[in-house]
């Protein structure tokens, strides 16, 4: 059951189209231990995919399926292969690869670039970097960064709170009391991630991470009071920077026709960036302690993670009981 939460303002997912090589270099110079070795004219080249490629086969001559659009990493294997070639062969081999519109090359393990590579990189304006990391470490670190940069992103209106370790997203129309509930939860010792605007990144398959835009981080509007600084007011233990989103609680106006979930065998679900999130609808009315129910929801979600579902347990008990009665009734009528 997929249902749009109608009054949460939601943008469709966005994916960045490209990343400039210059940006990659500036963001990672220290972390990836990078130095620019050649081809500085090409720093404006664009990386359009998050994958990494080792062009061993292309250097050896097989270029049919060469994924040239990726960042190319030359490890010990590639460099040793090139070293073993004659000067002419080496120039030809490198030329074969450099003919393609590759965004940039990285030579790992602090290896020196072959002179032919430097020459061609400068001529064609393809940046070549050196890294002191081993190839394995380097591809992990770069993969991480590229994953992050190319992660699909969306923005949602609501509050995100870590309740007993469960990332709980509160949505509902403006003024229904999302901030007040978040505040009440912080008072009870839970941790605010963000109020009002939530940036959602899809990290791994099926994992949504919510953060706040830096500008509004841990600042909250309380109607009737104005802006408050949650970090200053409640201290560092009342906040956190990001949290996986594990359940959405949609706050609604209560009326007589509202139909409550009564057993919780299966919850409704909503979806962000193609990832399903269980959705619970809670009506608000005076005397209803939403914070307390939010805590119960968090613990219920926890138990489900551990495979404990009281509705299923109840079903099992009922089946047992029905069977027991069936057998008993059969035996009662057995006048043999």
């Amino acid at each position, binding site marked *: 059951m997929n249902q749009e939460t109608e009054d949460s303002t939601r943008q469709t997912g966005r994916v960045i189209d490209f990343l400039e090589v210059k940006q990659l270099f500036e963001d990672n110079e220290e972390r990836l231990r990078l130095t620019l070795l050649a081809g500085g004219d090409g720093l404006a080249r664009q990386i359009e995919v998050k994958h990494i490629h080792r062009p061993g086969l292309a250097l050896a001559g097989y270029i049919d399926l060469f994924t040239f659009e990726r960042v190319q990493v030359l490890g010990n294997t590639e460099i040793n292969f090139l070293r073993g070639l004659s000067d002419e062969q080496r120039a030809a081999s490198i030329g074969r690869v450099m003919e393609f519109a590759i965004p940039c090359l990285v030579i790992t393990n602090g290896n020196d670039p072959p002179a032919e590579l430097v020459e061609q990189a400068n001529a064609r304006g393809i940046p070549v970097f050196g890294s002191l990391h081993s190839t394995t470490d380097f591809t992990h670190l770069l993969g991480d960064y590229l994953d992050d940069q190319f992660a699909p992103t969306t923005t949602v209106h609501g509050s995100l709170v870590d309740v007993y370790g469960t990332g709980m997203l509160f949505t509902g129309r403006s003024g229904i009391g999302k901030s007040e509930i978040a505040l009440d939860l912080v008072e009870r010792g839970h941790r605010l991630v963000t109020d009002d605007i939530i940036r959602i990144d899809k990290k791994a398959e099926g994992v949504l991470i919510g953060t706040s835009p830096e500008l509004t981080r841990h600042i909250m509007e309380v109607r009737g009071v104005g802006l408050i600084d949650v970090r200053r007011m409640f201290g560092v233990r009342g906040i956190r920077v990001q949290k996986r989103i594990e359940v959405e609680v949609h706050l609604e106006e209560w009326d*007589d*026709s509202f*139909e*409550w979930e*009564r*057993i919780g*065998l299966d919850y409704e679900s909503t979806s962000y960036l193609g990832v399903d999130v269980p959705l619970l609808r809670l009506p608000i009315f005076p005397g209803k302690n939403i914070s307390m129910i939010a805590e119960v929801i968090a613990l219920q979600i926890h138990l489900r993670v551990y495979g404990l579902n009281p*509705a299923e347990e*109840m*079903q099992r008990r*009922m*089946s047992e*009981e*029905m069977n027991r*009665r*069936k057998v008993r009734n059969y035996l009662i009528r057995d006048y043999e």
Partner: protein
Amino acid sequence: MKSQVVTLRNKLGLHARPASHFVKIAGRYRDTKVSIVRDGEVINGKSILGVMMLAAGQGASLEIRCDGPDEETCLAELVELVNNKFYEE
């Protein structure tokens, strides 16, 4: 007070989902009292745990009682739900 005896014809009887269906409909009639009687036991027809406690399987006979301003329509709707096998099969 209106009442009617029904027999559960659906395969699972008054299992979790059918029970939740039943209490949801009963709950819509706020001013009408709904009870289910089985083997002399009377339970509140708006209580999910009560209805589940009956553990009424296929073939079981239940008496549905409705008492209040909407007793007639309420009873009719609940009987229809049971006779239509809770719209689940």
